[in-house]
């Protein structure tokens, strides 16, 4: 009897605990409002909202490639399952048309939708919580003046029990720290503006900061490097391995134009970031670049010296520059490298502007993922209708040759120790099983 009583008591306690948790996790619904009319909003506010939405990269998750803007449905593959971006057009039934501004602000700052459901942190409210009231207003004005699209995103594909949203209240308790941005009194206005944009709306850390086992950013390792959609997002700290250290000016060019001549083209998920930032005023991008450059820090004297000599070496016309398109092998050069890569990357062909591979960050990362992806898929410009900057070599080269040429760039050109298991990474990329791209990336 005594045993039964204990079991009963435990059940009651567990039930109370669960009930208590549900009470703790509960958020009230916010009543639906009439869909706002576009002429309710000030034009200047809508225009600033458009710029802010570009900085926030909203369309990257909320627009299907080639589909109607912001209507949702884009699949975001995470290590926990697939989450679909929702429809954030002002459609009253399937979008956010009947969300009053308080509901929008609560979603952005607390990760709770109008109905009171907790949102998955794939939606970066851990960053958006830092936004000012004014910017929330502008984003709301922008979204509410878009063309409504009647469409519902597919249901998320998450393993049990992650589909149970009240659990997210526990996640938030552990990892989510709501609150507005606090400027640094000792920093310049420009750096503070950049810090505000980078840490809130632009949510750079969502990819460039590593995440823990439960998918939360490890805030004490801010910008130490992370992953995004199978690509490595390099560290934005002193550990950034770019052969020519980043400066605020180079970063601003790269962010705004998608290309910098000492660092190459934005690739993978960063293409869309650059595409969006091309529509943002220069002073916003410059401020973001200034703040990120401060995070990257001044290079050590050795690194700065190494970069100077690398650039000086490249400025001298070497024997490779005379080979033109024929890709004739310089002694010791891998013939596949020389014919497939050297014709552009080693030749002084003004028309091509191919980055010398000694300057490529992808060859200096701990994981070969980015370099492999560039070889496989090519390098693409921001303009979707333009041809590739570099063609993909998938099919032209066998997998064995792709591994060989990737390793050649790593060792003979970047001068780094060979990567382990490039073939394994290539296999994982091919099977779509490389979402983490090789663990602790930088």
């Amino acid at each position: 009897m005594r045993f039964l009583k204990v079991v009963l008591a435990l059940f009651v306690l567990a039930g109370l605990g669960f009930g208590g948790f549900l009470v703790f996790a509960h958020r009230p619904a916010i009543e639906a409002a009439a869909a706002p009319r576009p002429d309710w909003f000030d034009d200047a506010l809508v225009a600033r909202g458009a710029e802010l939405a570009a900085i926030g990269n909203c369309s990257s998750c909320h627009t299907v490639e080639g589909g109607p803007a912001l209507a949702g449905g884009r699949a975001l593959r995470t290590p926990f399952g697939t989450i679909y971006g929702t429809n954030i057009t002002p459609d009253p039934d399937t979008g956010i048309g009947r969300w009053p501004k308080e509901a929008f602000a609560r979603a952005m700052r607390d990760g709770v939708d109008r109905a009171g459901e907790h949102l998955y942190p794939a939606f970066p409210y851990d960053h958006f919580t830092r936004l000012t009231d004014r910017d929330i207003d502008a984003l709301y004005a922008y979204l509410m003046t878009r063309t409504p699209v009647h469409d519902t995103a597919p249901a998320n594909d998450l393993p049990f029990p992650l589909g149970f949203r009240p659990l997210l209240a526990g996640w938030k308790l552990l990892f989510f720290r709501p609150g507005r941005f606090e400027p640094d009194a000792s920093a310049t206005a420009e750096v503070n503006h950049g810090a505000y944009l980078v840490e809130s709306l632009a949510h750079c850390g969502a990819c460039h900061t590593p995440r823990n086992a439960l998918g939360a950013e490890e805030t004490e390792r801010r910008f130490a490097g992370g992953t995004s959609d199978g690509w490595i997002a390099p560290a934005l700290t002193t550990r950034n391995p770019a052969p020519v250290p980043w400066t605020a000016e180079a970063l601003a060019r790269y962010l705004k134009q998608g290309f910098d001549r000492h660092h190459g083209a934005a690739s993978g998920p960063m293409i869309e970031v650059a595409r969006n930032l091309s529509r943002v005023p220069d002073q916003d991008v410059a401020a973001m670049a200034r703040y990120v450059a401060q995070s990257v820090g001044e290079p050590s004297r050795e690194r700065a010296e190494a970069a100077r000599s690398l650039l000086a070496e490249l400025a001298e016309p070497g024997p490779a520059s005379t080979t033109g398109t024929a890709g004739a092998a310089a002694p010791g050069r891998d013939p596949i490298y020389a014919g497939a890569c050297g014709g552009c990357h080693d030749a002084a062909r003004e028309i091509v502007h191919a980055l010398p591979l000694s300057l490529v960050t992808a060859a200096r990362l701990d994981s070969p993922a980015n370099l492999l992806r560039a070889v496989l898929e090519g390098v693409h410009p921001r303009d979707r209708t333009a041809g590739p900057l570099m063609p993909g070599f998938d099919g032209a080269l066998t997998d064995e040759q792709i591994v060989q040429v990737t390793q050649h760039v790593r060792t003979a050109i970047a001068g780094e120790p060979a990567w382990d298991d490039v073939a394994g990474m290539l296999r994982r990329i091919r099977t779509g099983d490389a979402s983490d791209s090789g663990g602790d990336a930088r």
Partner: protein
Amino acid sequence: MITLTINGTRHDVSSDPATPLLYVLRDELGLHGAKYGCGFGQCGACTVMVDGRAVYSCVTPVAALPGREIKTVEGLGTIDSPGPMQRAFMDEQAAQCGYCIPGMMMRAQALLEQNPAAGEQDIRDHLQANLCRCGTHMRILAAVQRAADLMRSAGDGGPSPVTTGAVR
């Protein structure tokens, strides 16, 4: 010495192994079908097939090709007996200056061998990589659709020109 298998025939070539296939085809083997357009994989005029896939021969070194099946436009048929892809391009009069056409045909051939049921959008997407400065795109599109019909009615997605070159 590198041995290449081109349109089913083995060739020993003496060019430097780093030489892109295009120059070996044209300069050493006298196969002038593949064209030099840009020389850096941007225009598609040099497209050939390797192991069934369309590749830019101007950036594919012969060192990468021993033991692999290379097919050029000469492998699709002959003047007397054009293959279905060639037949369709003639029937649709898809060439204006014609410089891009061998590359177009080879990329389209690779698509239809892989997906004989390819529809208009598939063809548009797949041929994106090949440029035509004359602007005959609509005719090229029609020609590839016609080739797909011809191949489907022949009941064979990848006819070898030697045996099935004549289209009935």
